[in-house]
């Protein structure tokens, strides 16, 4: 239990065991990263969508996810200075703030969000999955590091499916380009048995994660699938998929969530449990990280719980049925990459939102459109319109940014959320006999 230091929020915050586990896992990982140069552990920088953690770890290498570092810097109030440093160095105010936060962090000594120094990469694995900016990001980082870069092109699902030839293309690149590069930097041979073992662990954790996310179909929902959801997906989206630690975390998380279902309890929010849930919402788009708790509180104060979100699918669409398959190691990694949320075309993304609204019996949906991310944001106004037309449920649209605090207008956002929820209330009343 911890005390909330904010004025007027003196209540003690309950911490589940899974929260403690996650905090310890992340701390250990960053500590290990700091020691990596001394211990001789190879380090691979890669991205969350299309990350091949099982493969990287099968070579004994450690993954670093720059988006995770950026969002953690945002949550810890460090991104403003990092972004300013990058802009002073000539990076445009128009482009992705994750990139600028990362570049700024590098320029400021590469001290990671937990306060430990991040090691330089031995390999930049540019998994080009669902985001154009990734390509530029690693072209920029590459200028700072003397290490090889592997470009893994993951074709976009423009037709709403991963074509067989695209699947082959991804698997062929992994086989002919990535694996030799990993062998070269680690000095180890490709060990398919070890990879299969990691994929088996990944699958186990994925089953538990889906059970956790699906629990939001209950009333009250035992989880918040957006604000809580980003914590739940943290280990599986980053360094811990395909590890025993990851399996333990998700087993524990599932146990806790199932216990809340049995007890009829809601999720734990910054202000304690949210059991009185007046609105069930679906959310599209990433959260704002610089004002994360304030943002969350705008919902929880109104009794609004998020029952499904698309952002929690950027690192894999497990709830749509995908599981890593140890019997087809390269093929399953290709399927994984191709199926990440931002690699899906707009009609498929709209289908997902509609499906969530129905399956989770949501009252409404909200799009948080972030300035930084065209992969998410371009087309969201059309998504809003389409989902409204197909479901008859009105949506809300707000704008913020990922890690640039200059683009978080608290009063404006709060006003919009409150107005939207008032409208849902009025709509509910008018539909009652």
């Amino acid at each position, binding site marked *: 239990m911890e005390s909330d230091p904010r004025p007027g929020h003196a209540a003690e915050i309950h911490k589940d065991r899974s929260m403690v586990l996650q905090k310890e896992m992340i701390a250990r990982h960053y500590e290990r990263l700091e020691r990596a140069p001394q211990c001789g552990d190879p380090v691979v920088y890669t991205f969350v969508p299309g990350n091949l953690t099982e493969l990287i770890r099968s070579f004994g290498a450690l993954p670093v996810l720059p988006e995770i570092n950026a969002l953690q810097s945002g949550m810890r109030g460090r991104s403003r200075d990092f972004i300013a440093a990058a802009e002073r160095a000539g990076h445009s105010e*128009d482009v992705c703030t994750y990139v600028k936060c990362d570049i700024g962090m590098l320029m400021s000594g590469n001290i990671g969000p937990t306060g430990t120094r991040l090691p330089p990469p031995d390999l930049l694995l540019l998994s080009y999955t669902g985001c*154009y900016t990734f390509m530029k990001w690693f*072209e920029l980082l590459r200028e700072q590091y003397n290490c090889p870069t592997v*470009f893994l092109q993951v074709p976009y699902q*423009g037709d709403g499916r991963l074509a067989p030839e695209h699947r082959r293309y991804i698997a062929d690149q992994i086989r002919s380009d990535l694996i030799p590069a990993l062998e070269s930097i680690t000095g180890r041979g490709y060990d398919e048995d070890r990879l299969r073992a990691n994929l088996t662990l990944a699958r186990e954790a994925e089953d538990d994660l889906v059970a956790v996310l699906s629990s939001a179909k209950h009333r009250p929902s035992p989880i918040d699938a957006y604000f809580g959801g980003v914590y739940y997906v943290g280990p599986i989206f980053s360094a811990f998929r395909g590890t025993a630690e990851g399996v333990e975390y998700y087993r524990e998380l599932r146990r806790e969530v199932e216990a809340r279902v049995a007890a009829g309890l809601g999720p734990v929010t910054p202000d304690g449990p949210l059991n009185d849930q007046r609105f069930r919402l679906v959310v599209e788009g990433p959260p704002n990280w610089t004002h994360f708790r304030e943002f969350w509180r705008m919902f929880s104060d109104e009794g609004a719980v998020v029952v499904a979100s698309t952002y929690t699918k950027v690192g894999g669409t497990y709830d749509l049925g995908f599981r890593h398959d140890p019997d087809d190691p390269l093929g399953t990694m290709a399927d994984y990459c191709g199926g990440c949320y931002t690699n899906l075309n707009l009609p498929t993304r709209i289908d997902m939102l509609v499906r969530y609204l129905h399956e989770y019996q949501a009252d409404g949906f909200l799009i948080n459109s972030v300035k930084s991310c065209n992969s998410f*944001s371009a087309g969201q*106004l*059309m998504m809003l319109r389409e989902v409204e037309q197909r479901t008859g449920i009105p949506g809300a649209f707000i704008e913020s940014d990922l890690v640039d605090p200059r683009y978080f207008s608290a009063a404006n956002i709060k006003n919009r959320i409150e107005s939207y929820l008032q409208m849902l209330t009025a709509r509910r009343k008018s539909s009652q006999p």
Partner: protein
Amino acid sequence: MTARAEVVDWALARYHDLEFSVAREWLAEQPSRHACGYLPVYAPREVIHAAGMLPVGIHGVGDQLEIIRGDAFYQSYICHLPRSVLELAQSGRLGFLSAVLFPSTCDVIRNLSGMWQLLEPQTYVRYLDLPHQHGLDLGERFWEGELRTLLADLSRISGRAVTDADLWRSIELYSEVRRLVLELYRVRRDEPWRVPTEELYPLLRAGEVVPPEVFLTQGRAYLEAVAGEPGRIRDNSRVIVVGSFCEQPPLGLIKTIERAGCYIVDDDFLLGNRLIQGDVVTGGPPLRGLAQAFVHHAMKTSVLYEPDPAGKRRLMKERVAAARADGIIFAAASFCDPALLDRPMLRAGAEAEGIPCIAFKYAENSGQFQQFREQAGTFSDGLKLWGGG
């Protein structure tokens, strides 16, 4: 009217024609004909043409159309191009297109492909994932497969069974187009007073919306007319313009740069018309030849991965040297991810070589050019006073 003025007038009329009249007239000549649109930066026009379709470049409307419907689809922090493209579509001006291709230029154009699927369900839509794997058979095979799929789909729409001979004819025709474009660029580089960009650019824009044979005729006529006129050499600086490969600068901006004392001796406007450098090697299957030409001979650009770690830093030096330029104007559309994310790398490379640079942003509908005139004018004066790269 001189022969040169006739070509320029013709080109300007095509540039200003938001109804795509030439394409519509071409279609009206035979009811079985089809047209296929494509967005920036690169689309394989050879494949479209071989399938019996007219390739039509969709490059926005500049400042010619008030954007009302297009703005309803986008937040303020998205670039202007997709707004004007949607305005064209929503106003029915693109209704003559049977197919539209969306190359992998950036996430905005990528997502626009999905919007098109929903807004124009009667139109064939394809997102073109350009290959980034250079020097690998994988990239060639991947792109050849994509071209084959595209050809099969377009052939189905046009009802034309395409033979290898058809493909070779189209490949040769567009090689001819590229040769002409490169010749125009060569003449402008060598004698920029003869080929001002305010004339060259509309000519190339016209080339995006007319049959290739028509462009070849007009382009050759222009070259011939230019050769017959002495031109008047001005005391201008030689600059290259970098970063305008997708959302196009307004013609007024191009004129402003030139009238501020700069010869534009290279640029990346309408880059797709010359992205493949050199001819397609004949002898093998035509689509393989086209795929190999792209994978191995595509110009370096922000929309393609640069495999050489030193490549970005070196690029500006190489381009400035090839164009014998004095300096660089980095001109990117606001919110253009490819251009703006690349700029720090390119600029650092240029500055490390002592190449003078300036940078600004525009939108295709920018209407006020005073600030650009002052910047470009000061830059040009500086180049003349203190020398260039």
